[in-house]
């Protein structure tokens, strides 16, 4: 198994939002699986750590939740992204891209040696 890194705090929220934007309404397990898959296994999270993040996002109004039925007929709580959440995602995405671009320029600087 490739070396897994711990997930940075704030980024987990963004991953959750993006996942919900792409996949539509999901339950907690679905989100956790998807995050693991998307990172190609490089990020390993305990599923339980998702829940405080989900709670925070719900408090902020970026996602909403309701009870539903999963694909194998089990009761589960489904989360979906709200309009405010989409806005937040867009803003953060731009912010990330700008940051990345600036940092790459810095890392591209060559030394004198």
């Amino acid at each position, binding site marked *: 198994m490739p070396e897994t890194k711990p997930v940075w705090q704030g980024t987990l929220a963004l991953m959750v939002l993006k996942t919900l934007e792409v996949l539509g309404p999901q339950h907690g397990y679905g989100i956790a699986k998807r995050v693991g898959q998307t990172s190609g296994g490089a990020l390993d999270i*305990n599923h339980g750590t998702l829940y405080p993040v989900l709670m925070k996002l719900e408090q902020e109004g970026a996602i909403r939740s309701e009870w539903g039925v999963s694909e*194998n007929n089990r009761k589960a709580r489904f989360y979906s992204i709200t309009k405010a959440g989409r806005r937040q995602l867009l803003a953060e995405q731009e912010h990330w891209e700008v940051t990345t671009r600036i940092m790459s320029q810095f890392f591209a600087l060559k030394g004198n040696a």
Partner: protein
Amino acid sequence: MRSLRRAFARIAGMFLSGRHEPRLSGEFEAHLDLIIDENIRAGMDPAEARRQALLTFGNLSSAMEACREQGGLPRLEAFIQDLRHASRALRKKPAFSISVVLTLAVALGANTAIFGLVDQALLHPNGVDHPERIISIREHYGRLLNLADLGATSGPAFAAIRAERSLFEHTAALSGAYLTYTGSSRPEHLQAAQVSSEWFDVLGAKPLLGRVFAPEEDQPNARRVVVLSYASWANRFASDPSIIGRKIQLDLQPWTVIGVMKPGIEWLGQADLWLPLALSPADIAPPENFHQHLFVLARLRPGVSQAKANSWLRLFSSRVLASGVPGAKETAALDWYIFPKSFVSAAFGDTRTPMLLLMAAVGIVLLIASANIAGLMLARNATRSHELAVQAALGASRWRLFSRVAAECILLSGLGTIAGLALAYAGMRVLVQWAPNTELPNGLNARLDIDTLAFTLGTVLATGVLFAILPAWQASRISLSSTLQAGGRTVSGRQRMRSALVIAEAALALVLMVGAGALLRSFLQLEQVQPGFDARGVTTAAVSFPPSQYSHSEKQIAFYHAVLDRLPADSAIASDVPFSGQTNAGGFEIRGRTSSNGPPTHADIRFVSPGYFEALHIALKRGRFFSSTDRIGTGCVAIIDENMARQFWPGEDPVGKQIRPDALRHAPDGSGWCTIAGIVGHILQTDLALDSGRGTLYYALYQIPRTFPVADIVTHGPADPVRAAVASADPAESIFDVQSLSGRVAGSLGARRFLLQMMISFAIAALFLSALGLYGVISYAVSQRRREIGVRMALGAHRTSVSRMVVTEGLRLAAIGAAVGLVIAAALARMIESQLYRARVFDILTVAIAVTILLAVAAAASFLPARRAASIDPMTALRCD
């Protein structure tokens, strides 16, 4: 925006935490089931599937914990837990907790009560809207004795001010009157205020029921309408809501009630009801320009300053003087003008300094109380430092330590504040009942409004910083190792701080004692002042004469005769009696003199029956008193007092000279002259502390062809014979305002007496609290120094020398405090000087007595600890730790 939403969600989450958990655990279970299903599909058996699922999910309880923290406000919840601990800890130490809460409650309550009254009186008079926009119209007579600020003005001036709409939004006038209400079992005398139609507009006061006067009702011969005060509506008409439109009998005439005012608007004479003033055109035209009988208030238009009003009034005054109206020439020589005074200082001005003094005194008591509490908290820190050190060793952060101590302080403050507010409300009720009506502003209620509550909160925060934060901060600085090792030996800095606090308390207590002592001396001096008449055994009672019944002076004079015939010989009747709060004054001419030379001819005036001077034992200096031979038809006689004789006839004998009152100046055929028949001793009219210097001019009541609305009957002995005499002279009449004359004279000292009583109470409280503080410090020092004392005694020190040592320590602290206190008192001396009558603050005797009392109390406070120190057994002291 997001964080705001989150904050609200978390606050709600604190209270709804019970709701989250079942839902979350259900969600976790569902999540686990989904993982287990997948694991089973991947081929694991159920037990293995579950085990792997739990690994994948992670720790269930820490996930739950993380969610709980996210859902609520962990720091706040921790603090609430600290509060719970604090309440438990405080309950274990009832003596400490109760003494802190009680001290705080009493000090806070007293301060809030006093501030509440001061705020109502000086800052926000009850029922008045924006009092700073209202001015009172006053008149100034520069060349007349003590008439530099006359609180009344004339009808023409009132009309002119009212007409000047560009400066004055509303103008109104008030004149007092008495009416008899006959509608209940006995006729009752009511204090009425006759006001012009804009009176309530000037004040910005709205009625509770009905309406106030319309301009057309404020005319002579208009419909008889009346507005009731809240108190008389509640007391006499049982708060009947259908009172509007009902007719009530006043002075045997029917009057329609058109409105009831809100409570608290009775001031300016405790009016029971308001009538229209109904000035006639003659009242507001010459020659009324210098007849001052109206109290006028005006509300300045927004943007108009008092200075602007002042210049307009001065201009108006000079125009009147130049206009040639009757009396203008003579008045011009008297340096006369009209000027404005702010409403608050006009209504409550005299009471400003005493109220500020009270606030300062009670503030000092609060400071002392706070110092005591701080000392108690510091002492508690000493006993608690061990426990806190253990907690710190177990990992509590500095914030948590501070939070624990602060929680105790907040709990104590909170309890103290609630108890304090309750005490304040009760205290205000007591003060309002007990305080004299005469000079303390009337219309004060016991109520805690926003300002007062804000003041209380501010005081609590300030004292909280004083007595809580400092000890709490100190507690959090606990040094672990030294505390755990040494077993709680005291930090000497703490003891020094407590001693400094005690010295400060002693200083403040001395300041209060010196102040109270000065007021006491001044008051005792005042009580010795002789007013010029003998009030012993004299009863006064008032009678009012409704104009409908007593329209002719003959009928009034007949009434006087009828009443006096039925009373013992040493009774009399007068237009008013001294110390009744009213004076009439007027000018006069002296026959054979022009008004330009000599002092302005002006004096207080009183109309009296024969026997008046004898009844009050006013001395006859020359000539004779009035007698029954002075009647209508016989020559007019007047009696002057020594001041008048000295002022206007220096070096001559005034008896036999003639004067004419200004009121009769334009009498036909040069009549109206009165011959001076005698000279009597000068008397004080209103205040034992203040002699206006004006002389008094007496006219014979039986000779005067005018009617009086009210007269006072003077008699020796009880009031019942007077009641009977009045009833038999006219069954429709009754007496009111029955008081002993000595009661009136003593009553004039009412405000001073009240101030004195309060100051003495505060001084005693301050002394008591300081003694408590001193006791605490000294007994703590004794308990800390047990070993040292044990050593001393083992080495041969006598018990008495040990106790002497302790008492000396107490006296030392008190003496330093006294010295500091004297310095402070010297600095503040001026504040109190205005309230003193012929006394100075730094009277050697008073100061010496105050210092002695302080030292004696300090010695007494050190007595118990000294005894305890002396009874220390050296063996046990040296043995245990």
